[in-house]
């Protein structure tokens, strides 16, 4: 009784397409399953070019990729955390806090009349160290403190942003002019025709892929995500591995911040707003299971690019009411997730 009922709505289509059509459907879907995000991205790019030919301009493509770099780099770290079965909701606030603290530290160093170059290098190291430290705090609270990652990072989501707001008096923290000028090539600079942040994004993504697929740590992460108990029996140091994924993510947030600060030379309470959701969406749209266990770095990178392409296309055309921008984004995310869904 049951199967018949569920196949009822398909019946007319099956008649029309005949037996061959019915067989073709699952295999067509099966092929798309792995390629879902890529197919989605290609379709979007074709649509974008048709709607406005400027979309395919090299300048526009570089704009989009540069914009993606922040979320993309964070997504690489997020990919590890999610594959291991965890989650981090605080990355946007963390980026804001790191950006603000980094600017304050750099301004303080400038007051000691250090050379701008030295100030920048020390500032970058500070950002990475602070990111790693905040990630370590997450990791320890989750593994040693035995608190759900959702709760730990929901807590720090509020804490980090509140501290930035406090440090900035609710306004903006602005980088010293001379340092800002010396620092701006890190975001605006172009190397061999490709902006610096895109190079960094490529490097981090390749490194992330390598660590995930070719090292013991990467395999441990996947093992913990598919079955934590079994991983434990197989003598994997679960607590250490999990903590490391958060440290890694913290450092990725640090790197993203290092690229973000020279863009506007300032941090404000709106910095990094909703980055956590974009990063998580990029990872999931890219085909990683939210419950952990399996995922790919390529998918994550494509997912991150896909999200910013949607926004870019919407800005380049005016066929859709500006009130519906967020809805279009939502539809595309759901459609792509549908294309790459796993069959149980």
């Amino acid at each position: 009784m049951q199967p018949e009922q569920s196949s009822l709505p398909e019946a007319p289509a099956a008649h029309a397409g005949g037996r061959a059509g019915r067989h073709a459907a699952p295999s067509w879907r099966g092929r798309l399953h792995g390629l879902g995000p890529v197919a989605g991205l290609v379709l979007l790019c074709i649509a974008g070019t048709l709607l406005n030919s400027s979309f395919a301009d090299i300048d526009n493509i570089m704009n989009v990729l540069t914009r993606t770099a922040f979320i993309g780099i964070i997504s690489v770290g997020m990919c590890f955390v999610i594959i291991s079965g965890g989650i981090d909701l605080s990355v946007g606030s963390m980026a804001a806090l790191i950006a603000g603290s980094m600017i304050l530290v750099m301004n303080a160093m400038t007051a000691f009349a250090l050379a701008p170059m030295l100030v920048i290098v020390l500032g970058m190291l500070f950002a990475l160290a602070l990111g790693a430290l905040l990630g370590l705090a997450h990791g320890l609270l989750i593994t040693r403190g035995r608190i759900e990652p959702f709760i730990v990072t929901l807590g720090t989501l509020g804490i980090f942003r509140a501290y930035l707001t406090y440090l900035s008096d609710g306004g903006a923290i602005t980088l010293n002019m001379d340092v800002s000028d010396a620092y701006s090539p890190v975001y605006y600079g172009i190397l061999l025709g490709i902006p610096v942040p895109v190079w960094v994004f490529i490097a981090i993504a390749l490194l992330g892929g390598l660590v995930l697929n070719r090292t013991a740590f990467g395999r441990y992460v996947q093992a913990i995500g598919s079955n934590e108990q079994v991983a434990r029996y197989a003598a994997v140091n679960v607590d250490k591995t999990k903590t490391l994924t958060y440290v890694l993510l913290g450092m990725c947030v640090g790197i993203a911040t290092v690229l973000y600060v020279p863009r506007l030379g300032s941090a404000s309470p709106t910095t990094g707003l909703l980055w956590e959701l974009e990063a998580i969406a990029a990872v999931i749209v890219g085909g990683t299971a939210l419950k952990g266990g399996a995922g790919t770095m390529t998918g994550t990178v494509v997912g991150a690019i896909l999200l910013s392409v949607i926004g870019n296309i919407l800005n380049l055309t005016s066929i859709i009411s500006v009130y519906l921008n967020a809805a279009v984004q939502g539809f595309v995310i759901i459609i792509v997730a549908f294309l790459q869904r796993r069959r149980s």
Partner: protein
Amino acid sequence: MNRSLRKLAIGVAAMAAMGLSSGAMAQEKVNLGVSIPAATHSFTAGVVWWSNQAKAELEKAHPNLKVTVKTSSGAPEQANQLQDLLTVNRINALVIMPFESASLTQPVAQLKKKGVYVTVVDRGLTDTSAQDAYVSGDNTAFGRLAAEYLVKKLNGKGDIVALRGIATTLDNERMDAFNAVIKKHPDIKLLDARYGNWNRDDAFKVMQDYLTRFKHIDAVWAADDDMAFGVLKAIEQAKRTDIKEVFGGAGAKGMVKTIIDGSNPLIQADVSYSPKFIYDAIKLTAEARLKGEKLPETTIIPSVLITKENAKDFYFPDSPF
């Protein structure tokens, strides 16, 4: 049990209210509560700063006046705070900048019923009978002055792109006023108006995409000084020279300083929409109540065009905004 408790509570409140109003009459003391949003971005930070500024100045000038400033991070918290202001701080006058119009109308009405004189700032309540006076900035002039300035600057001919804030009535009023002026000049073309959410990062992205999409732009109405900041960065990056003017809005101190110094040729003017209106509202309410007078039903703090000539009157280096 519940019902008797509620009766008791109503009784206590009524007694408190009676005690309050008779006390106020006897001593003519004004106990003024100020309820405002917490400082989460530069504009609200300015609101907090100006409120405390008003408290310091007015309490010094009037020994009969006590001002209590409370900030809250959301509408429910603000509603609770209103109750505390009445029962704990025993206020007899209130200046409130509501988070939302609809959800705070009832809590404010409750206070008014108990004899508190209510001045509402910036966002009006849905039921105006819940307020005694209304003080606000001039959103229509905010859009109109910007449009008139740009039309004049472009000699009535050119292409403009605009940014919008967050979809709210306030944003709509500004945009409508801007459009109304632009429509009168057929040679001025408004190419597009998109949301930049009143923040630098989103404005940067929107402007980048405008620059990709439109090969020629004469002027940008950024509609906010923070958004203007992002717009300037995007123009700088694209090295575009066709844009002659970027017009922000609100009169943030960084922008006013730029106008005074003449340090950026793209920034020549701004329009004021200062968080100082909370200062004006507190001052007007306190001084009127000390004399036992009422405020006019509606007071509009005018938005003024800021140019190099008058910029120094709008420059408050100590304010966070």
